């Protein structure tokens, strides 16, 4: 009896509020379950090693969804922002983790990673956001690759005279004898004191959820979605298009930068190669499979598709192939007029079989 009442009140609540609560709930429940499993020693090693990457990809997927799903622009360079965040945040961490109190250095590392990625988001956004559709996709792809290539060839050292930078090799840094190489080209940053944990990952996921869900459900978020739905109409009612495109793009970059820090501080070495085209596409697959503009879908897709290959090690080699096929199938299923018509027919059939349920569902969708 009492249960029913709670349920009825729940249904009366604002739909957005319900959605948000469920999303936070899913994350918290997953967190608790994992904590219990690991405390009782029931967590497989192969999974516990994936916890931080899962959180990373969830943040990546939600943040990319802001650009792809809510703003409606196809960005193929998301891993580039992750990389910028990872390198800047890790660099700060390596330099300061012994001198500053660890929690302070850690929080600062995350902030720096986010800010650096955000600044680059702004710089890249200026030319990129003038483009549309395929052009924007191609240019973001190129930027992602440029960032990877530059970081892959970057040498940075520190000695008593200060920082030394080179794009050639460690020798040309020209450091004193007391010098220390911080970024060693393709070898990247080594000897990182690991700091990421599942708890930190979950906190970052919750922060991302908070920022993105509240943003898309506010005045600015409405403006962002209006550009996606009809740019010309948005212009005609005075929405500043560039401002809101920028807002979505930069917010997305900041969050990706923080995800990069989380990811990097989970290992002892950091190399630029990790953040290539494949990673950008992988995150895009999460977004598309989870549903454009569907935050819960992003969480689930990123989690499932990060765990699955670990569990199915034998087919891991075919991972990108399977994703590509899934991506195409999903596009056809959600975009092709024939597939949409077929789905509508199926929904009607199911409704006809269960008239009561079908009607309720329809009311809910409205």
């Amino acid at each position, binding site marked *: 009896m009492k249960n029913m009442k709670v349920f009825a009140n729940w249904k009366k609540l604002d739909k957005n509020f319900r959605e948000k609560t469920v999303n936070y709930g899913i994350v918290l429940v997953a967190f608790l379950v994992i904590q219990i499993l690991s405390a009782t020693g029931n967590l497989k090693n192969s999974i516990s090693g994936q916890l931080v990457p899962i959180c990373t990809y969830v943040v990546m997927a939600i943040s990319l969804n802001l650009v792809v799903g809510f703003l409606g622009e196809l960005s193929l360079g998301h891993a580039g922002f992750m990389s910028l965040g990872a390198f800047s945040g890790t660099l700060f961490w390596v330099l300061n983790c012994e001198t500053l109190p660890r929690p302070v250095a850690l929080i600062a590392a995350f902030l720096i990673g986010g800010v650096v990625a955000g600044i680059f988001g702004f710089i890249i956004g200026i030319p990129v956001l003038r483009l549309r559709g395929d052009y924007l996709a191609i240019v973001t792809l190129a930027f992602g690759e440029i960032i990877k290539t530059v970081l892959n060839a970057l040498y940075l050292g520190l000695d008593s005279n200060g920082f030394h930078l080179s794009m050639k090799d460690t020798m040309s840094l020209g450091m004193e004898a007391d010098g220390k190489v911080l970024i060693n080209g393709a070898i990247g940053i080594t000897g990182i004191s690991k700091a990421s944990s599942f708890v930190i990952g979950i906190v970052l996921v919750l922060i991302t959820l*908070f*920022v993105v869900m*509240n*943003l898309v*459900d*506010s*005045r*600015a*978020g*409405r*403006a962002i*979605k*209006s550009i*996606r*739905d*009809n740019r*010309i*109409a*948005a*212009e*005609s*009612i*005075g*929405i*500043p*298009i560039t401002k809101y495109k920028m*807002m979505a793009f930069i917010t997305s970059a900041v969050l990706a930068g923080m995800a990069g820090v989380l990811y990097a501080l989970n290992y002892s070495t950091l190399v630029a190669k990790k953040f290539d085209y494949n990673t950008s596409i992988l995150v895009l697959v999460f977004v598309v499979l989870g549903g454009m*503009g569907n935050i819960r879908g992003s969480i689930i897709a990123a989690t499932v598709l990060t765990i699955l290959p670990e569990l199915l090690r034998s087919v891991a080699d075919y991972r990108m192939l399977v994703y590509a096929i899934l991506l195409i199938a999903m596009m056809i299923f959600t975009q092709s007029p024939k597939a949409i018509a077929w789905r509508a027919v199926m929904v009607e059939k199911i409704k006809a079989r269960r008239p009561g349920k079908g009607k309720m569902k329809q009311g809910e969708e*409205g």
Partner: protein
Amino acid sequence: MALLEVRNLGIAFGGLQAVSQLDMTIETGHLYGLIGPNGAGKTTAFNMLTGMYTPTEGNITLDGVDITGKTPEFISKHGVARTFQNIRLFDGLSVLDNVKLGLHNQMKYSMWDGIFRTPKYRVKEAEMNHQAMKLLKIFDLDKEANLLASSLPYGKQRKLEIARALATNPKLLLLDEPAAGMNPQETDELMKTVRFVRDEFGIAILLIEHDMNFVMGICEEITVLDHGQCIAHGTGKEVRNNPKVVAAYLGGE
């Protein structure tokens, strides 16, 4: 000084002179019609008035401000709102959100207020909801507020577009074929609503319409375009009996 002054306005697309030497003067509170056969350049004129196209000659002054060739955003902020011949709603958003977007430049709070759900966010959102519902009520759309805009029937989508345009608090409202696709009863209702809007909001309305009963029944002043040229101007009666207009329509059909 009149609210809208259009002088010698023209635009060419490559070799095609879509509109040329168009003059119009519209006073606040007026209902003004722009008619002409298909392809006459009516929608193109709207596109210039709203900054979607940049005129190649002439100028447009709104309430003393030169808006010739300005951006749609600038022109919207200075008080021109429009609807589109082929409806342009935000399909993925609710009916209510469509109208709230029209209020975007009226009731403001920052991105941070939105993310952190500050008191300002709550106050402004409540204000927006209130104002948007008031507008929806005028168009008898308040019961559909939470439906997706795309799920509305055609006639209601047209009305929603007008409600959204009005939400921007315009001085001049441009309606591009508002009665297209409506049945006679809906058209009748729309006529009343358009008059009501003019009286209630005290704004000028410029409309394009092929339904002659609608135009003649509602507009105090009419300009007729043909092949981009103004061929007649005056009251409904004057225009209807103008031989050039009769010829243009007969020739066009």
